[in-house]
């Protein structure tokens, strides 16, 4: 985590200080690290661990500020609208950054108004099925799903969530169809998977103890590499024909200067001017 903090500091410095170098040092005050998901979740836990090391490295306090709501859009939009001075950073999972712009009407342009700094951590995904499904691996599952088109269902934490899109990606590549059952959160999906109401899902780690106890069947690991937790379980790519498969990561970004004319008139710091020229 310390090396991560160091590389993050380097990245922030590269982005923040170059245009400001002649003006002032950074940081001269505490930094606000906005997390767009609730305290206790994986994005928050990583942010808090990172904030402590980052603060020690920088000699300034890094304050984690959870701004929850609208599938992560509340915190994201807050950072995008903040001053682009390096004192307000966003720690987000991929979903709000990469998926939300395609399914929500957002008030900011994520690609233009948030400047990526660095990826901080990846979260393993697990393709899991209820034990009653007659397949012990992805190959067998695929044969079963293709032989029973539309009969299987899968649960997700909601429409447009990473879980939902990840499974759609897997189905698209592996050429099979299943019925989507959207829930309000991933924990409820797991409960119904254990109860047999849901046939399969992509899990972000909560199912690990149930996989180990045999209550849930691990079919494969999306992503390019095997999980160190289940090293004997092949990836979906290894089991084919999923040539590509999603993985999840969380990342840090900061607000970028908006280059639209209205904002440029309102405030033009040297940093903002430099960014707008890019």
């Amino acid at each position: 985590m310390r090396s991560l903090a160091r590389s993050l500091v380097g990245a922030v410095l590269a982005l923040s200080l170059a245009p400001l170098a002649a003006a002032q040092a950074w940081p001269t005050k505490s930094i606000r690290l906005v997390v767009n998901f609730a305290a206790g979740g994986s994005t928050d836990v990583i942010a808090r661990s990172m904030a402590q090391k980052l603060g020690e490295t920088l000699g300034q306090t890094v304050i984690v500020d959870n701004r929850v709501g609208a599938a992560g859009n509340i915190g994201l939009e807050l950072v995008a609208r903040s001053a682009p001075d390096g004192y307000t950073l966003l720690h987000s999972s991929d979903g709000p950054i990469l998926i939300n712009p395609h399914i929500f009407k957002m008030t900011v342009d994520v690609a233009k108004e948030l400047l990526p700094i660095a990826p901080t951590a990846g979260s393993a995904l697990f393709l899991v099925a209820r034990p009653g499904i007659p397949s012990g691996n992805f190959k067998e599952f695929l044969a079963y799903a293709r032989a029973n088109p539309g009969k299987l269902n899968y649960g997700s934490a909601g429409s447009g969530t990473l879980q939902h899109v990840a499974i759609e990606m897997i189905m698209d590549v592996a050429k099979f169809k299943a019925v989507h059952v959207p829930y309000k959160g991933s924990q409820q999906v797991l409960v119904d998977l254990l109860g047999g109401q849901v046939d399969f899902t992509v899990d972000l780690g909560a199912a690990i103890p149930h996989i180990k106890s045999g209550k849930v069947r691990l079919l494969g690991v999306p992503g390019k590499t095997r999980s160190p937790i289940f090293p004997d379980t092949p990836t979906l790519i290894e089991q084919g024909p999923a040539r590509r498969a999603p993985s999840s990561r969380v990342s840090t970004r900061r607000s970028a200067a908006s280059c639209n004319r209205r904002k440029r008139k309102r405030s033009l710091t040297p940093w903002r001017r430099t960014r707008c020229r890019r």
Partner: protein
Amino acid sequence: MASYALPPMTPEQFAAHQQRARDSFGKVVREANIRAN
């Protein structure tokens, strides 16, 4: 939670990676007609 460290990337590499991923997710969202709740 099953998190792991990621290899370091420059901000430019990260931005390019994110844009590719955003495009890829966008394609899936459109093809599967995924909508918000």
